[in-house]
């Protein structure tokens, strides 16, 4: 990770709030730098997906500030969306479109130049092992293939902030490794990657920083060592796995 102090944060959330009857996101503060790989962990219903949906512009926050690469996403949603990609856990594809047609549509949505987008589409599909299937409709694809098509759609417009909700679900070991490599490569190019996952091993291996969210609040944040220290304040264990740390911190609801 390269912390660039002069550039604005890739994502900055200040006192973000959203309530559906009861608070789902409750005063969340979060800052993610360009090129940083950030894993957002939390139990089911902790507010991870609600947060990502607000950043993606799919949900209107009740209050708070969302800033993407220095752009106020609530004031200038279109400018912010142009820099963002969101990959939900259930890949949103058109069954009746082929991967190449899907990418053509996505590139159109993000207003890309045809020549550049065409080359990128071919590169992405080849790397994801989908080039042979580029003209087949997605309806017959396995879950893993759909996930890869959706990932190509998220990457084609070269976002500066990439948000992924459980991106490895349904992928086999080979594809999972490929996707992890591609995400790491994105961060090297200065793209901020935020991912939610319940596979703690993924967070442990890939993430520069890990945030733990409970009841709509960020209760702990840091690299694995820092989280271990936080967790170990009350216990003697210093070599705990992320799973132990996660369970301990969420159970105690520690404020970072």
């Amino acid at each position: 990770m390269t912390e660039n102090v002069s550039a604005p944060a890739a994502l900055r959330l200040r006192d973000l709030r959203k309530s559906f009857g009861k608070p789902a996101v409750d005063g969340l503060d979060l800052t993610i730098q360009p090129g940083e790989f950030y894993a957002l962990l939390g139990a089911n219903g902790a507010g991870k997906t609600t947060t990502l949906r607000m950043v993606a512009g799919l949900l209107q926050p009740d209050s708070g500030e969302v800033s993407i690469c220095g752009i106020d996403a609530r004031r200038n949603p279109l400018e912010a969306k142009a820099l963002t990609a969101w990959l939900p856990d259930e890949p949103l594809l058109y069954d009746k479109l082929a991967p190449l047609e899907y990418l053509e549509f996505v590139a159109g949505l993000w207003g890309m130049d045809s020549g550049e987008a065409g080359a990128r589409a071919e590169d992405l599909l080849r790397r994801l092992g989908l080039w042979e299937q580029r003209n087949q409709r997605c309806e017959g694809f396995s879950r893993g293939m759909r996930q890869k098509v959706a990932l190509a759609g998220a990457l084609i417009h070269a976002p500066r902030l990439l948000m992924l909700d459980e991106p490895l679900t349904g992928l086999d070991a080979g594809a999972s490794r490929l996707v992890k490599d591609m995400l790491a490569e994105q961060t090297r190019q200065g793209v901020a990657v935020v991912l939610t996952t319940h596979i703690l091993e993924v967070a442990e291996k890939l993430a520069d920083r890990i945030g733990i969210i409970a009841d709509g609040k960020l209760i702990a944040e840091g690299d694995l060592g820092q989280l271990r220290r936080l967790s170990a304040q009350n216990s003697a264990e210093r070599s705990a796995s992320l799973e132990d740390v996660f369970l301990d911190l969420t159970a105690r609801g520690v404020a970072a």
Partner: protein
Amino acid sequence: MIPRSLSLARLVRHDLAISWRRLCGFLRAKTTTRALIVLGLASALLHLVAWPLALGLLALEARDGAVALDGLGFVIVLPWLMSQGLTGATRALYSRGDLDLLLSAPLPPQKILASRALSVAIESFGAVGMFLLPVANMAAILGGPRWLAVYPALASAVLMATGASFAATLGLFRLLGPKRTRAATQVIATLVGAWFVICAQIFNFIPEDSQKALRQALAHPAPGSWLDPQGALWLPARAAAAEGRALALWVLLGCGAFMLAVRALGPAFARGALIAAGEGRARAASRDGSFRCERAGALRRKEWRLLARDPYLLSQILLQSLYTLPVALIIWKSLGPNGSVAFSVAPALVAIAAQLSAALAFLAGSSEDAGDFVATAPVPPGEILRRKIEAIALPVALLLALPLAGVAFAAPRIGLVTLLCAAAGAASTAILNFWKPLENRRGDLIKTHAQNKLVGLVEHGLSICWALAALLLCLGSWTALAPIALALALLWANKPRAPGVKAFAPA
């Protein structure tokens, strides 16, 4: 040793129970009792309507004889039965719900096919009989029990049509493959179902002399010709007219054809269903073209691709254009002396444009599988709506171009008024459908095709308003402003309140 599996009766009962639940869902009846009450009331109403119809039939019978009458009846009913059978056979082949389970069970494929075909036959008998049998019942009460022969004659016809439909579907399957078969049967079912409308139109547009000759031949058929009531073609008609031997032969023929079809088609059916289950991997969707993603074009092209790849939609458009064809023909026939006919056709064209665009918009809206994803794109919600409407405008314009050109040729001013009102009508019903979000996902829509009833009503209101406006404008009356104002008010009342929250448009 193969364990004893379910009996045919149990399998049919299982299929019928599922069909019944689908019917209950369609009737929006929560319980069986409620569904029975609704059906009972409908049946009573149909019997009431059948009363004058039966009186008319008896009068005609006294003049032309029962056989000719039943012959005419079969000309109408048989295509209807075929259409029902084709729809049922396609559903039996493609509804993956429990077919995988049945085919993996130790059951001979003939038995599965027999149960599916029998339940399709029973459903068709119910669907057609619901409307036909009340007439037979009333005729029996008023004219004598011989009219009850319609029951076995119809049942036998249903068995025959079902057997033929399964054979046709599986034959198409072999010829065209799984994907195209579904589209083809849907189109054929639509065409066959619209058979009567087509026939009536054909009869209207053949020259006067030929019409006369045909009437003459029908009244006094030459013995041995295909119009001779004693010929083999007329067997079902004689059966329905309660001629003992003919009825026995017809029933025997129906049962025989059905059993033969089941026996012969069993293995092909099992193969077909398994292939249908694994479809989609089968073939390439398209060939490599140039990658073009200029925004407006990319957005429209995506809508067209989705529209073009929807077999259900294709048959819908086909049906709509089938109904616009006669309108175009009427204009074509009346071109010449003055524009009076064009003037009478203008409101109809406006209404058709509005309805067609509503149907297309509804289906385009329901094919939006990734609305949430589109909402994350840096595109103003208004532009996405605008591109969708543009995408729909093209097929509507293509279908209406010919009749509109006819009107414009006959009377340019009326043509212009029709064009403007049709465009306004089409745009308004399309916008309405896009504003009203669809709750259920696409797959469910195809099954139920359940459009919001209120939206349907407003849609009709809008098309009537624009048609009326076209009529008044053609008359050169300023009162045309009233229906236009009403249409705009209707549209405004249905505008989404909190933009983008529930509608497909982004937040």
